[in-house]
């Protein structure tokens, strides 16, 4: 199996600093004056209930949503985030008229660049969908489709990866497998994972923030022991779940 060294080419993953993030949905402020640091080359998880503004925060960092006047998103190495961010959503959004390889290499196709087929095939192999390279999306299971979406994200070889509940539509076992796969393939990148699943955050996160309240704020981070992906039954994961659920519940009052 190819190592990450051959698949990830230019990985000088920077840290990201979000300061004074501000966003209102209509007249209702979702968050205001929110600060968040994503440490370089590590997984940061933001855990929160639906509608709290997690996705908006993530889209703001991705540059898909503009914040308030004082809002700033900076990379730790001083350069801009533009062109260095990959984005992955809850649904795979594969194009139904392209086969697996076509979808995996969609970025290059849309930009009119040469397609690196060797790299695509190596990544598909690493993601466990190498056999399905010529299949159409509607011939695949939900888990396989999301693997292809993960490969599409990795093909971009961006040092920063933002993921918006990418595994929440999958069944429990498939979800665990894809979490392991993501940790392996996204090693050394700066990752932000937004989720509403405490177990997922605890398995994957180097640092876990709970996002709560209205307007929403971030608590102090939880930093579980051990390297991701952690075992679902590890002591820190189990005790962490109790704490995270309590924090989530407190914010809901």
């Amino acid at each position, binding site marked *: 199996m190819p190592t990450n060294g051959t698949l990830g080419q230019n990985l000088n993953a920077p840290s990201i600093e979000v300061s004074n993030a501000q966003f209102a949905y209509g007249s209702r402020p979702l968050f205001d004056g929110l600060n968040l640091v994503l440490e370089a080359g590590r997984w940061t998880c933001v855990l929160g209930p639906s509608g709290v503004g997690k996705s908006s925060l993530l889209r703001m960092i991705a540059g898909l949503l503009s914040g308030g006047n004082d809002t700033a998103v900076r990379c730790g190495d001083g350069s801009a985030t533009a062109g260095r*961010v*990959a984005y*992955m959503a*809850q649904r795979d*959004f594969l194009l*139904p008229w392209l086969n697996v390889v076509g979808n995996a290499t969609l970025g290059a196709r849309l*930009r009119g660049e040469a397609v690196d087929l060797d790299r695509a095939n190596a990544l598909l192999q690493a993601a466990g969908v190498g056999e399905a390279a010529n299949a*159409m999306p509607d011939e695949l299971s939900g888990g396989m489709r999301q693997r292809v979406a993960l490969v599409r994200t990795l093909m971009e070889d961006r040092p920063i990866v933002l993921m918006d509940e990418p595994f929440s539509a999958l069944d429990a076992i498939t979800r665990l497998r894809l979490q392991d796969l993501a940790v392996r393939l996204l090693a050394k990148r700066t990752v932000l994972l937004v989720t509403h699943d405490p177990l997922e955050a605890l398995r994957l996160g180097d640092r876990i923030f709970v996002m709560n309240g209205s307007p929403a704020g971030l608590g102090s981070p939880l930093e579980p022991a051990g390297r991701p992906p952690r075992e679902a039954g590890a002591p820190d994961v189990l005790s962490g779940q109790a704490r995270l659920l309590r924090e989530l519940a407190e914010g809901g009052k």
Partner: protein
Amino acid sequence: MSSKQRFATPIIALVIFALLWEFLVWINDWPNYVMASPSDLGPAFYKFRWLFLEFGWDTLWRTVAGLMLAIAFGVVVGMIMGFSRTMREALYPLLVGFNAIPKATVVPVVALLLVGQHNLNTVLLAFMISFFPITVSISIGLSTLEPEYRDILLSLGASRLTIFRKIALPKTLPEFFGALKVAVTLAFIGTNLMEIVEPHGRGLGHLFDSGKISADYPLMFAVLIALAVMGIGLYYVVVILEKIFAGWAERQES
């Protein structure tokens, strides 16, 4: 289903239909000036074969021209409505209202406005009756494109124009072809409305009208059958185009 069966099934259905029709006329002992039977159609076709060819061509090209116009108009207006909520809210009542008007009442208006322009008038009527489903399908297809699609594609470095051209438009193709199948048959109605209500000596509608004047019921029914056959033919042209351009949307038979 094998390809032999796929062809045989509709043909058997047609034969059964013709037999039932023949039987109905025979059992009621209807004379030819009340109701024609399938066995009268052959002689009628043969007797007027050159007229059928000539007028059938008139009707066909006018219908296709009207459809082309409807597609061009429907795609442009559907795009405007698909992207702008304001335009959607502004144009929907107008379109629905216009579509609700019986097109037979539009015939004299058009015929007076563009007096003597029979070809143009007929094409216009085919257009007017068939653009609505196309417009609605494009508008719905575009306005229901998930915003996350746009997010993902923007983050892949695609320009908005590329997203529109390579993603948004292809994604509306299944809806578009669904609407086109409806529009094809509607367009024939439009063409014949003009040819029958405002007779000008061209098209199958005119042949129908002359059948009526001379109480030649077999001829009238033969015209109807010819129209049905042309409608079916054009419908399958759309089906083939759909297979080529939107075959990916077809569910696997399992």
